[in-house]
């Protein structure tokens, strides 16, 4: 009779032996021995949510070393947890938005987005006055001056849904909703299957088709593991309300870049907060309400 247990253990050992052999064979191709070690550890990394505190600290050290070797700069990788009694919300005043795309480029810079191939989290749709048809909207508009008469502008980014279809679609739980309402991706766990992108009705996610290119002098070295750290190729990435800023109490970068003050951000659970003032006092709507995704991103028209 075959001893299954023994056979299984043997096979495991064999795989392990084989993997070590492959790593040893590949080691000369890596630039440095430390690189090979980093890649090796990254390959066998646990899911971020299942890591213990010690493992996370080790991970931070490893990433900081990796980025230092790759970008020749000192990085600060944060793994800060969600604050207690905080649920983030965002509101955007469509009467004020002039479609200048300052937010788009502030986001690109803050979040270390790839310049080539180009990735942008925010897309500004231009719509005709009196019409609200996404199909007929234009986001490649390029006039000499904005706002153009007869149009209004409708910026769309990740809506941080309460019932996020992208989270449901992920086959490996690489994306989830944090307690403060931010939908995040573990970029080391993502396999790049893009199911979440198909599930998202807002075009809130982007795929890294190539190795991200970031100009050396524009790299943001204050990063969060779940946020703006330099992403590897072939993963899906998304807006996180600038998790590296918002979890420290700061406003997101897009809000501070807006020249007309159309963007509002804050804690939905605090009745005194400006986001609640908007929702409680103004008529707000959510985008594609009929899909029942319940976004935490609100739009309003108000002078």
């Amino acid at each position: 009779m075959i001893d299954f247990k023994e056979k299984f253990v043997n096979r495991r050992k064999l795989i392990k032996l084989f993997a070590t052999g492959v790593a040893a064979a590949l080691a000369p191709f890596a630039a440095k021995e430390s690189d090979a070690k980093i890649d090796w550890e990254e390959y066998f990394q646990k899911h971020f949510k299942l890591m213990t505190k010690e493992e996370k600290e080790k991970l931070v050290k490893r990433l900081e070393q990796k980025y230092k070797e790759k970008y020749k700069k000192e990085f600060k990788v944060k793994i800060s947890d969600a604050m207690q009694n905080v649920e983030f919300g965002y509101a955007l005043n469509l009467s004020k938005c002039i479609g200048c795309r300052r937010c788009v480029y502030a986001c690109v810079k803050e979040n270390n987005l790839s310049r080539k191939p180009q990735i942008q989290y925010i897309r500004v749709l231009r719509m005709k006055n009196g019409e609200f048809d996404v199909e007929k909207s234009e986001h490649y508009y390029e006039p000499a001056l904005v706002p153009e008469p007869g149009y209004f502008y409708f910026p769309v980014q990740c809506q941080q849904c309460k019932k996020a279809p992208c989270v449901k679609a992920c086959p490996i739980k690489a994306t989830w909703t944090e307690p403060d309402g931010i939908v995040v991706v573990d970029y080391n766990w993502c396999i790049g299957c893009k199911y979440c992108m198909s599930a998202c009705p807002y075009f809130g996610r982007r795929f890294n088709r190539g190795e991200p290119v970031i100009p050396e002098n524009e790299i943001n070295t204050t990063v969060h593991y779940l946020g703006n750290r330099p992403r590897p190729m072939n993963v899906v990435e998304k807006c996180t309300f600038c998790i590296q800023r918002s979890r420290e109490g700061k406003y997101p970068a897009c809000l501070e870049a807006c020249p007309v003050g159309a963007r509002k951000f804050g804690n939905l659970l605090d009745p005194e907060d400006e986001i609640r003032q908007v929702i409680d006092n103004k008529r707000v709507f959510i985008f594609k309400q009929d899909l029942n995704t319940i976004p935490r991103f609100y739009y309003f028209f108000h002078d």
Partner: protein
Amino acid sequence: MLRKTKLLFLLFLFLFVYKNVFAKKEYPVPYPPLSPGIFPCMNCHEGLERNKKKRALKEMHQNIKIENHGDRWCYDCHDERNLDRLKLSNGEYVKFQESYRLCGQCHGNVYNDWQKGIHGKRIGNWKGEKQYLLCVHCHDPHSPRFKAMKPEPAPVRPDKATTH
């Protein structure tokens, strides 16, 4: 002894009432965007005669034109005796740092929304210290309508993008 206690009590009562009723709330605002070298105004205007006639300014302040702001002229807002401060319609004087009170005289609804954070822009922290930008940081008080600006470049069309 009793008299002293009474006095002390009255003092506290006065402070309490003053703090809650009379003292106006101040907002954390950055320094107003005055043109460099222009302040204090009285450095030049001291001893100059005030000309209240509406006219195109020729010798100084040529860049100031009252547009889209109704039938206004300098001394509707600037205090004619001391130009380093502004004057409310009730005769109260306010500093340039508190110009929101001046704007709020007519734009009451907007002032209300600005205090709550619905109108206007705040920078800094959503939790903790933040700065409320003044009305004049975004709106030129002499010509308050927003000027059109050049947009940042449009995203690259997918058919024109190269992967590598």
